Structure formats: structure tokens, C-alpha cells
């Protein structure tokens, strides 16, 4: 059952080949069997899942079911779930149980999806390897000595290993796309403002966006369709009708113009990755797409810009974790100052503390103009680069997602800058607010790699259409890590 697509699962449920309860039990069994080694779930909500499955079966019987009704999923532990702990990978929130649901949790519940549990992640989504989680690293199902990428490491590992058909994820600088590339999945980060951030624990508010990791563009489209939409509880969500992401998947991509930014194809990616991307370009050309070299001249500034803006917002967003109202509180503090210092010192891991310090520094009096303000100006230039490209007739932009295949545990963890460079291809889309996705394009020495598509604002449907057409012509995305296929 776990190799079926969402459409096949939905058909199976309707044809009574299996019930949602049976499907849910199947996944719970797989989690039980495999997740001890992978560590993709931090909380398994079996009882809640079975209750949701029963409710879904009732809806199916009553003819009141949508395409997603009865389909299980994993929720990244960054989305608040009423009554179920939401820790965001941090000791700080190890005991935190929200009295509310995130909007996307509410929406996917309403669609009838069955939440199997909460997924591991880098602490507060800060990381590219899932090594900063308080709940321990997540293993890459393709090679358990390697990282799954981050911050949505739990989301990709559980889907890649068939422990859930699909999972939610979030992307602040590449946290959906980079791990998707490293685990042979399709991951999409929609336009900023397309999916509500209400109830999603903030890392960097102006960059954070929720999305999906799935086994195909079509599966991703189904779930993203249900997550998207204006939310009056999030002032930055956009009041605009949601496009139909599915009806156009079958369209031909003949005549489409795809830009190849020369800055993204300069040195940086490994020879293996370059070869796979070139092959993907050849395939898309065969499908009728035209390629054109373009320039996004400010893209080399993405990483430094991001590492000013994101920590600045993070240092502010994480100020609320002070041990006063909820979360970790140091014991025996003798003064208010000591309570703050110790609660935060004990509750936050090293990477989070590093980013809080960077962020505090760049917002400080006397440094604000040189760092934060300057970064905002560069951010604007990066946005303008894309705007110009799209105005010049470019429909989508194609680039690598990650510089290389998954690296080994510990390989980058002593060198924060090397770790930050993992996001070199993905960060610009967050800074510009445009949608972007990663999809599988083959293997290098048995390890998966992917390429990235970036689109104009609200071009999710177009992007998914291209990805789907590519996946009709290739079978990379259908490959499984051997241990988990059967």
C-alpha cells in the first residue's frame, strides 16, 4: 500500500480495497518497524490517527469524502497541534502543548487526512542536516550514515521510507527543497503568503513558508491545494483565490521558456550533480521546453543577505521563549536576569544560540544600518533580478537544488559557514518570496539528487505542470531505497 500514489490510495479507499483504518494501521506498523533507526517521528499519535481514520471511513461510507479523506500524513513538529506536543525540535518546547491548531493542521484535518504523528526537524528549523534537533539526528533512508538534509529532515525521511505517503514541511531558506533533493522526493515551497503561517512556530517571519514533501508532483499538488488559501489570522497571507493545481498537470510544456541563471551554473556543484541536471535539461528539451541563459546578477549575495535577515528575525521571534509563561524554565534561579539567562541558555541548542547572537548583533544600535538595512536593500535587488527575468518572457527558472548528494553525519557540523552554503541555490526564492520546488533527477553513486524550479508569484500550477510532465517522462521519483520498498 505504501508504494501507491495519493490518487491510487483514494481509489483504493473508494473501491473498498482497504479502509482508512487499515491504511493507517499499515503505516503505524511501518513506523514501528523502521523509525527506531530513522528517528523521523518525535511523536506518534496512533490513537488520534485511528480515530481520524474511523471518521474518514464514515465520511467515505456516507459519500462525503474528498480526495484526501482517509489518507495518512506526517506533520512537521513546527505546526501547532491542539493537545499534542509541538516542540519545534527544541528542548525549550519539550513540554509545550498548544491549546490551538495551526491553520494548515485545521485545513488538512477538515480534508479528512489522518495525522500519524509529528516529525523531527532541526531546532526551530535552523539547520540543513537535521543534526541540531533536540530529539537527535534523522537518518537518510538512502544511506543511514548520511543526513537527510534539513530542516525538514523528519518530513523527507518518513516519506522516502514509506512511513507516510506525504508530509508537511516548511522552508525558510531551502528547508523543503534541499532535503527533498537529498532523499529523492518532490518538495514544493509555494509563494510567500499562499499558505497561512498561523500556528506555525516562527523562525524568520518574512521568509517562512509552509509546503509539502511528496513522492510526486501530483501528490504534492493534492496536499498543497488543500493547505493553500487566505487566512484572516495571518496578515501576510494573500487574499487571492487558490488556483486549481491539478487540472493543468497534463498540459504539454511545448514552447515554455525556462531560464538557466549563469550564476547558478558556475563552480559550486559537484560533477555528478551537474551531469544529472544537464540530463534533466535534455529531457525537458525533448518535451518541448526552450532553454535560455539568463543572469540573476545579485544571486551571489543571497547567502550573506539571508544570514543577516533570517537571524535578525529569529532573534526577535525567539525572544518570547523566556521561561516565564511556558516552555523550559531553569530551576532555582535567584533573580529575573538569572531566570532568563539560564532558561534560554539551557533551552536553546548551540546553533539557535549562534543565530540569536548574530541576529541581535545586526539589529543593534550602530550596526542596524550597515547590516539589517543593507541586507533589506540587497534583498530588494535579488527580487528585482527575478522580476526582470519573468518580465523578459522567462516562464520558470531552473537550477540545481543542492551542491551535492547527502553528506555524512558530522561532515559539516563543525563549520557553520560550510553548512550555510548548503542553501546557496535555494535561499534566493525565499528572499524574493517566489514559489520554488525540487524534484528528483537521478542518482550519483546510488544517492539521489534533484533540480530546482522557481516560478513567478503564484505560478505554482505552472511549476507543478512542468514537474509532472517531467515525471511522466522519467522514473527517478519512483525509485525506492531498497530496504523500504517492500
Amino acid at each position, binding site marked *: 500500500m505504501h508504494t501507491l500514489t495519493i490518487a491510487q490510495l483514494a481509489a483504493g479507499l473508494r473501491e473498498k480495497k482497504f479502509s482508512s483504518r487499515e491504511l493507517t494501521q499499515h503505516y503505524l506498523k511501518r513506523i514501528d518497524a523502521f523509525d527506531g533507526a530513522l528517528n523521523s517521528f518525535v511523536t506518534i499519535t496512533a490513537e488520534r490517527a485511528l480515530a481520524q481514520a474511523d471518521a474518514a471511513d464514515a465520511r467515505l461510507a456516507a459519500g462525503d469524502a474528498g480526495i484526501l479523506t482517509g489518507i495518512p500524513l506526517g506533520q512537521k513538529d513546527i505546526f501547532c497541534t491542539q493537545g499534542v506536543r509541538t516542540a519545534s525540535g527544541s528542548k525549550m518546547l519539550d513540554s*509545550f502543548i*498548544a491549546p490551538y491548531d495551526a491553520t494548515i493542521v485545521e485545513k488538512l484535518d477538515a480534508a479528512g487526512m489522518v495525522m500519524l504523528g509529528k516529525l523531527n526537524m532541526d531546532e526551530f528549523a535552523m539547520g540543513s542536516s537535521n543534526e541540531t534537533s533536540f530529539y537527535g539526528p534523522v537518518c537518510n533512508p538512502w544511506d543511514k550514515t548520511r543526513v537527510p538534509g534539513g530542516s525538514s529532515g523528519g518530513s523527507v525521511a518518513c516519506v522516502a521510507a514509506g512511513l507516510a505517503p506525504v508530509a508537511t514541511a516548511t522552508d525558510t531558506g531551502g528547508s523543503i527543497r534541499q532535503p527533498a533533493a537529498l532523499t529523492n522526493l518532490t518538495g514544493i515551497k509555494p509563494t510567500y503568503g499562499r499558505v497561512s503561517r*498561523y500556528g506555525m512556530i516562527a523562525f524568520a517571519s518574512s521568509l517562512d513558508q509552509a509546503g509539502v514533501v511528496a513522492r510526486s508532483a501530483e501528490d504534492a499538488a493534492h496536499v498543497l491545494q488543500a493547505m493553500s488559501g487566505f487566512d484572516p489570522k495571518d496578515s501576510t497571507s494573500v487574499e487571492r483565490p487558490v488556483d486549481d493545481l491539478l487540472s493543468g498537470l497534463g498540459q504539454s510544456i511545448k514552447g515554455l521558456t525556462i531560464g538557466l541563471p549563469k550564476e547558478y551554473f558556475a563552480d559550486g556543484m559537484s560533477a555528478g550533480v551537474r551531469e544529472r541536471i544537464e540530463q534533466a535539461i535534455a529531457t525537458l528539451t525533448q518535451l518541448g521546453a526552450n532553454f535560455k541563459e539568463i543572469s540573476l546578477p545579485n544571486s551571489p549575495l543571497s547567502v550573506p543577505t539571508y544570514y543577516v535577515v533570517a537571524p535578525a528575525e529569529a532573534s526577535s521571534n525567539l525572544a*518570547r521563549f523566556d521561561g*516565564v509563561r*511556558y516552555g523550559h524554565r531553569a530551576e532555582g534561579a535567584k533573580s529575573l536576569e538569572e531566570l532568563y539567562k539560564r532558561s534560554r541558555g539551557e533551552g536553546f541548542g548551540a546553533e539557535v544560540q549562534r543565530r540569536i547572537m548574530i541576529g541581535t548583533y545586526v539589529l*543593534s544600535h550602530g550596526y542596524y544600518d550597515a547590516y539589517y538595512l543593507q541586507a533589506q536593500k540587497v534583498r530588494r535587488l535579488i527580487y528585482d533580478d527575478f522580476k526582470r527575468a519573468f518580465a523578459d518572457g522567462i516562464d520558470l527558472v531552473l537550477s540545481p537544488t543542492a551542491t551535492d548528494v547527502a553528506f555524512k553525519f558530522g561532515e559539516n557540523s563543525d563549520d557553520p559557514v560550510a553548512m550555510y552554503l548548503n542553501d546557496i541555490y535555494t535561499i534566493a526564492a525565499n528572499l524574493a518570496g517566489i514559489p520554488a520546488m525540487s524534484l528528483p533527477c537521478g542518482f550519483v553513486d546510488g544517492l539521489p539528487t534533484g533540480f530546482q524550479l522557481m516560478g513567478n508569484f503564484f505560478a505554482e500550477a505552472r511549476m507543478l505542470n512542468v514537474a509532472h510532465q517531467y515525471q511522466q517522462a522519467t522514473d527517478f521519483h519512483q525509485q525506492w531505497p531498497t530496504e523500504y520498498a517492500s
Partner: protein
Amino acid sequence: MIIPAGWEAVIGLEVHCQLSTQSKIFSGSAIAYGAAPNSQASPIDLGMPGMLPVLNVDAVKKAVTFGLSVSAKIADRSVFARKHYFYPDLPKGYQISQYELPIVYEGHLDIEMEDGTTKRIGITRAHLEEDAGKSVHEGFQKSSGIDLNRAGTPLIEIVSEPDLRTAQEAVAYLKKLHQLVVYLGICDGNMQEGSFRCDANVSVRKIGAPKFGTRTETKNVNSFRYVEKAIEYEIERQIEVIEAGGSIRQETRLFNPDTGETKAMRSKEDANDYRYFPDPDLLPVVCTQDYIDAIRKSLPELPEPKRARFVAEFGLSDYDAKTLTSSRELAAYYEAVVTASGAEAKLCANWVATDLLGALNKMSKGIEESPITAVAFAALLKRIADKTINGKIAKDVFEAMVAGEGSADEIIQAKGLVQVTDESAIIAAIDDVIAKNPQQLADYRGGKDKLYGFFVGQAMKATQGKANPDALNRLLKERLAG
């Protein structure tokens, strides 16, 4: 207090004014005062993870209303910024405020000086922000309680230019501002409950000095009297320090109402670096010209134009007009009395400003709590106007109305207070008085004019005060003349 010769004080006020919206500025929680601790605090107010602010447009409307009433500019685009500091009653670790781009800027307010001239006080800016919660230190053993009911209450912080020169000017400005925000209906003005709070920036310098002296900021002086005392104390203290060869430290000070002194709280060196930056959770506030014009059209008549109108339309003295326009409710009450009674506007003014306000004062009540409605009060004045009762009797009727004995007509009926206009009855009473006082009559006729008052009093007494005063006067003069 008189500022020593050669010295000048420079004062600017920062006023925090709670906006009387139904709900908080960024959440749907109620903002009623005095509710059980934390009963009006939602996950958003508690700064819980994943919670996001959504701007209450009524707060924006009220801020714009204020801006227009002080002839200020309204920013077509203003931006919320986060102001960071750690304190237990600040749930998010930052306060959402406005920093570089406030919604209201460059306005002014004219205050009246003692010599009758007016002085224009500049208003630098007024920005929207959220209030913090409260720390409660009593009633907890070895710990403090946090009440977040107030957290997220909408405020405008109104910052004046350093245009004020004496404590009295500062108070005049503050009172004017207070009257204005209450008039506009954007703030309940309750200083005891903290709805209208003031911080005073004070410095001194030698007259003619080109630059301002170093200033101190005195926090939370929450009555007009305290503002005056705190500023006077600061001026005196600063002059003393400088004259003794010392210098003023830039610092925040706290006023102690018990001693009337201010005390250093923290110096500039240990001040927070607030690390302001635009709040990425909120969009810029855009005010279109149409939006601003619509609010301008809905502005109520402001105190000054109303006062001028009362003088012109009702023929009131400037003093009476000022009294009657001191609050919007009082002015409305007065106008309702004039309309409903049909009595002369000046008569109504005397009765409202003197008798009614006097009685309310004794009961420590405001006009909105008056036991006599405007319509009921008008019924009393109508009976004076149509001569059913005279002014003296009316005072008794008024007392009875205050005591809740009924309407004017009911009381007049019940007590038989209808004015005696039957001339024969009045003549009979006069003749009786004259007959009983032959000596006084002789003296009066002999030239002692002062005795006229004696006869009026006696005759009025003989009619139990009910005689029509005009008729009584006329007839008495005739009879006394013989």
C-alpha cells in the same frame, strides 16, 4: 513656584492614551478594566508560539481621528516595528510599536496662558502601539504574578515638542489634550485606571543658552497635580545641581507622590538597546486620502469651535461657554435643555452651570451620572419660563428633584408651589404686612429706601414664596407709595 531669574525650563511630554476600542489592537480579546487576572488574555496576547497579530482597524481610525483633531499630518504609509526588551509582563519579548514611520506627525495644540493669550505647542508625532501587561507584587509569596489583561491594549503615544516652559504650561497642555481625547471619544480619560498616562521630559538652561540642557525623563505621573509637582521638583533639583557646580545625568526618574520627589531609576548607560526593526508579521498601514477624508467628515465638533458657537448662538459669556463645553456630554446636556425647555438660553446656562453642576459636584458625579435627565431638567426650566413658579421656588423644586421626589410638575403639584399671580391675593398679603409694620412704613416713607427689601421679604413670606416676583414688586411699590 517661580523659576529663579536667569533660568528657563524646557519641557516636553509623552502621553500614553489608551484607545477605547472594543478589543485589543492585535487580538480579539476584550479590554475591559478590572476583569479577573488573565481572563482577557488569548494565546496571541500570551505570545504563544505560532501566534500572529492582526491589526484592529478601529485603533487606526481612532489614531487618525486624533491626528486630524490636532491638525497633524496622517502618514499615507506607516509601519509597525518591534521594540525589544525582556520583562515578564511583555510576553513576546518585544512590544509592537511604530518607530520610524508613525501614523500621525507634525500637529499642534493651542493652550491658553494665564494672561489670556494662547501658545501653540507642537506635537511631534503620535504613534500606535500595544500596552504591556502588569506585574503584581502583592499577595504572592517570594514571587510575582503577571496579569496580561492589559497586554495588547491599543495606545497612542503622543509626543510633544519641547515647547513647554513651566509646569503650569505643561498641565494646561495635558488638560487640553485630555479634554480633546475624551471629546473625540477615543479614550475614556480615566487617569486612575491608567487610560491616560504621562511621562515628562525636563531640562533647564540659562535663558539665552543656544542649546537645551541634559534632560531627565520622569515616568508615569498619573494626575494633573502630580505632573505639576514632579516637573517643579525636577526644575528645582536640576537648577540646584547645576548651581552647585554639578551636571545633570541623562536618566529616567520615578515620581513618588508621597514625598513629591523624583528619584533616579536608571541612567542612559543601562538603558536597553531596543533593536527596533519593522515587524514582518504586519503589513504597512496604508491610509488613503478617501479614508482620511471620511474620518474628517465624521469628527465631532471640537471644544473650541463649540465654545465660540455657544457665545454666538446662545449669547453666553465666554466663561459660561467654557464651562458648558468642558465636556462633550455636558455641552450636549445643555443644548438638550435649551431645546426642550424653550427657556431663555442664558437662564438655562445659569441653571446648568451653577445649580446642576454644583449639586453633581457635591455628589462627586459627572454629568453622565446626573440623577436628572436633560428632558426632566428642561421641564423645570419651562415652569420658570411660563411663570408657573418663580426662581426661588424653583430652587426648592430642584432640590426635591435631586432627592428623587419626582418630576418638576409632580413636585410643584404635590407641594402646592404654583406661583400666585392673582393680584388681589398679593395685594391682600402686602396690605397685611404694611398694617403690621407701621414704624417701618413711616421710616421708609421718610426716606429709608433700604427698607424696601424688608417689605419684599415679608410679603414673599406671607405668600409662602409663591408670589410672582414681578407682580409683587409692582404692587408693593404702589402700596408703599400710598
